[in-house]
């Protein structure tokens, strides 16, 4: 049988290493955010709270069954999505460790892309916009087709990735780069003031850095769901590097 070499070994390694590193960055990052939330409102006259995340925690604890007796509703978000409130020093230290690992891992990833030639598959193509619409309709219609038990064929593309994948896999490394750049901008706003200025100054760079985090979250959810939906071969290709779908013309890979 024939298999297709899909991902270079360095790409595979750095891909999986991103999981614990990004998790560490996000958990510690939100603990850092707690110390001085970017998004604040006027202090509540009763509680003195000014943090929207605390409001969300209060809202969740008031409405979600079983959480009515949660001891610290304003801390709910930070207790569940970060290392916890009130631990800035520990969070910063872990954030630096993960940040340096993230940068090193990014270099490994880029090296793997260059050596394996995989970077070519990530570049946007002229036909992407049109084909992305096709893919969008495919995903939009898939649940209904499934309910109606009608066949709903996957649009055919002769490339490694379909246009939506390519847009995602092209932008996520860029987002990673921007996360690092905005991170340096807010970490060293004096020595690297020009970098902060590039993002509109120190305060705006903080906002960039904050939203880039959510971009990763936004990417990871459909990424994981679609890989699981796509099946074992796709998941295996990121572990073993081989895909056995080479002889199956229904796949995104062309046979020839």
């Amino acid at each position, binding site marked *: 049988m024939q298999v297709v070499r899909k991902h270079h070994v360095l790409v595979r390694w750095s891909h999986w290493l991103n999981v614990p590193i990004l998790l560490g960055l996000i958990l510690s990052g939100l603990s850092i955010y707690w110390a001085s939330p970017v998004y604040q409102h006027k202090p509540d006259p009763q509680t003195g709270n000014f943090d929207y995340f605390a409001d969300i925690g209060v809202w969740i604890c008031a409405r979600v069954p079983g959480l009515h007796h949660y001891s610290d509703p304003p801390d709910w978000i930070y207790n569940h999505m970060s290392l916890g409130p009130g631990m800035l020093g520990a969070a910063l230290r872990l954030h630096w460790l993960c940040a340096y690992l993230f940068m090193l891992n990014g270099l490994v990833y880029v090296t793997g892309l260059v050596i394996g030639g995989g970077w070519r598959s990530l570049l946007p193509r002229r036909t992407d916009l049109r084909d992305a619409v096709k893919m969008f309709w495919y995903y939009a219609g898939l649940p209904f087709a499934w309910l109606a038990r009608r066949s709903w064929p996957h649009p055919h593309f002769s490339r490694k990735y379909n246009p939506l994948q390519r847009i995602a896999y092209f932008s996520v490394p860029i987002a990673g780069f921007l996360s690092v750049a905005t991170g340096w901008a807010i970490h060293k706003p004096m020595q690297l003031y020009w970098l902060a200025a590039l993002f509109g100054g120190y305060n705006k760079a903080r906002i960039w850095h904050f939203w880039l985090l959510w971009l990763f979250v936004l990417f990871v959810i459909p990424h994981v769901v679609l890989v699981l939906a796509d099946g074992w071969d796709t998941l295996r290709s990121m572990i073993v*590097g081989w895909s056995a779908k080479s002889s199956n013309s229904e796949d995104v890979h062309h046979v020839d």
Partner: protein
Amino acid sequence: MSIEGDNAAVDPENAQPANAQSATETPADDVLDLKETESLTSGSSSAQQADPGQPDEVEATHAESGPDEPQLTAAAPLPSVEADGIMDEQTEQNEAGREPVEREAALVGSSPSVADEPEIVPKRTGFFQERLPERVDVAPQVLRRRTRREVLLFGAGALAALAAGGSLLPQATLNRLGVIHEKKPWPGKEWLLNRARRVDDDVAEALFSQNRLVPTYTKSQITPLKNNYNGATPDPSYIPEWHLQLRGLASGLSVSLSIRNLLTRFQMHDQITRFVCVEGWSAIAWWSGLRFDDVLRAYPPVSQARWIRVESSVNLDPWGNPDPYFVSLDIPTARQPQTLLATHFNGQPLTVDHGAPVRLLVPVKLGLKNVKAVTRITYLKEQPKDYWAERGYSCYDGI
């Protein structure tokens, strides 16, 4: 090898329809692709691509297919280091199977004129053009064995990462999650995390330059600055008796300066700079004061002094009890021209909230180094203790 038998049975069947398809179907494909270009150029070159065994007759008809061929043939079932189960007989099998395809391809290939070819050449050699995926012939057992091996390794790695990453979380987080019940971390954890912070401090030190000025702002850009005293704000009764002590001087003496001494003996400097807190907030504020560098010149430190301990004895904890505040500052940072002993804020003498009568203002450091109500400055050879470094923060804090 028992694998060979399997491959011989499976492969020609798999490879054969695929190649036939490429020669007949691809011209209809509307996606601009390497494969498509290939078959547009000529059917026979697609046969060549699939089969490195017979390049001669193709090259006779297509002059352009010379230098770039190695890239294209990467898609062909060439033997590879990774694939343990490749057969040498493979190529022979395929050759035998492909002959009809080639004849068919030759018919298709005769139609495009020679004039069309130069247009297509750049596309097929395009540097950014996506390459065909590299295909490897492999026996099913080999794939299974390799999958099993790599997945087991992956699982072991995932478990190791879970254990290592989990144990690096702060003790308080692990306590809250119920993972551990004791406070004591394993020794390697502190070492690794402190090492990362040390690296970060070294980077900060490398970025620092004594002569580089931080950006300054205009008065219209000034933003409010809150009183961020970590504990209670001290009672202003300390101000009338306030003196600044200088120790560790080259003269061996201890000098005590009143606010009057400072204001009359040193030149005042104004600056509007950004003040950045470790918590993340910042404020643009207008400060006036004397340069730390001028004090260093007027009262030189002992030779080989590299560090400064800056203290405030009036600092209070949140309950109003005395909680002396002390930070370490490197002498190059103190010599940076924007490092002030600030006496004025927004043109007015400092209030208690902002550290009357004199505070350290060091824009190249986080706010926590900007000691309010400085009472003593000591020059040292060794790095002194630091209030926030003892509480788990960096001791350098360069920004």
